[in-house]
């Protein structure tokens, strides 16, 4: 069963994210668990955002690839703990930067009290993924997907996306 699990892990980890195809599910940190239950392999995935439209595709993709490899597979959703951008791996961060997307900074650690309000655009010291210069300015808090913000490099003037910390 160990080798079956290793095979299942290798297959599930390599499934690409349909919206960020340069990243795998393992890079994104949404693959939460792979275990054997009797003759079945059970894979648990967690959504990034509640409305992530790619979740269903990723579940089906994992199930399809495991079945094609001759495994009996079940894919489950886990909601807790909520996904954090901190779970994107080092490899995932390198791939994002190589694709021109600035990887996330550490997510805020918040206690039990009320969530603080932010009344001005967040200042983040991001290196431009194209020219490497610091000092980019945020142009929008949301981008083509909910997980990203839009920035423009102050040095080369190019716009780029940033994966928001969450």
């Amino acid at each position: 069963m160990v080798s079956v699990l290793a095979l299942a892990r290798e297959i599930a980890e390599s499934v690409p994210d349909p919206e960020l195809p340069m990243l795998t599910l393992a890079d994104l940190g949404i693959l939460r668990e792979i275990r054997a239950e009797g003759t079945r392999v059970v894979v648990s995935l967690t959504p990034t955002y509640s409305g992530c439209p790619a979740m269903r595709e990723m579940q089906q993709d994992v199930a399809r690839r495991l079945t094609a490899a001759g495994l009996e597979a079940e894919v489950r959703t886990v909601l807790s703990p909520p996904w954090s951008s901190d779970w994107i791996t080092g490899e995932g961060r390198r791939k994002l930067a190589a694709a021109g997307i600035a990887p996330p900074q550490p997510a805020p650690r918040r206690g039990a009290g009320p969530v603080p309000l932010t009344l001005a655009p967040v200042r983040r010291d991001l290196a431009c993924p194209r020219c490497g210069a610091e000092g980019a300015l945020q142009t929008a808090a949301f981008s083509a997907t909910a997980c990203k913000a839009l920035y423009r490099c102050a040095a080369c003037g190019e716009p780029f996306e940033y994966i928001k910390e969450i």
Partner: protein
Amino acid sequence: MGFDTAYEAISEEEEEDPGHRWAYGTGFTDPLAGVDTSVPDGVDGADLATYCLMLGDDALIMSHRLQQWLARAPELEEETALANIALDLLGQARLLLSRAGAADGTGRGEDDYAFGRPEREFRNVRLAEIADADFAGLVARLLVFSTWRLALLARLRDLRDPVLAAVAAKGVSEITYHRDYAAQWAIRLAGGTEYSRGRMQAALAAVAPLCAELFTATGAERRLAAAGVAADPAALRPEFDAVIGQVMSAAGMTWPDRPGLAGVAGQAGRDGVHTEAMGYLLAELQSVARAHPGATW
């Protein structure tokens, strides 16, 4: 990606399973697949389902109003922001409506609730259904909605239903961004021109009467709060007032003092008694599902 156009990328077929590519799905799957949805001990399943419908309908109806801004927003950046906020809320709604079907034992799915119920069975607060007169109106409504919902979901994280707690924990980090977005726009409009400031002040006056309802508990909420599953709406008021006060202070505006919008015989949105706007909204939201029952695409 090796495709000349985005259309080519999504329409390309893979030989082993043609048409599986995303954006070409056929129907949706249960967003709670594999999640343990048993009802906690000592909790009434029907009350829990009603509560999930309240929170789910708030998100669904607010999301629909935000979607109506698409192709009408003042700038492309606001369009993507509103679309993403709407998508977050739609995701929360899907989870909550699915949780309702599991809790009341009927096994109804998200689509049955969203597309199959008449107006009288929708449990959203009336704040969610109001049409926005202008962009300032949207900003005011989103500010109030997200400030209130963030305070509510933050409390649910620690309560006894593990599914609601998990949905709430995800929602908190999403709505933190929504609230910041609305607060920053309120300040920008207030500090812009005399005209934009006047529109923002008028928008606050329009939304203020819809606030009292947010802090009024129904019977189901009171029973669930006693069972440790729901948040007491009245307890959210101090945090709400503090956050709105912070925004008003930064904007140099005062929160308009308005009496709450009356209901009908003491009933309002949570009881299924809505404003005139709701019928038009549902007619649009449910039109495709009613014209083509059971259709998938």
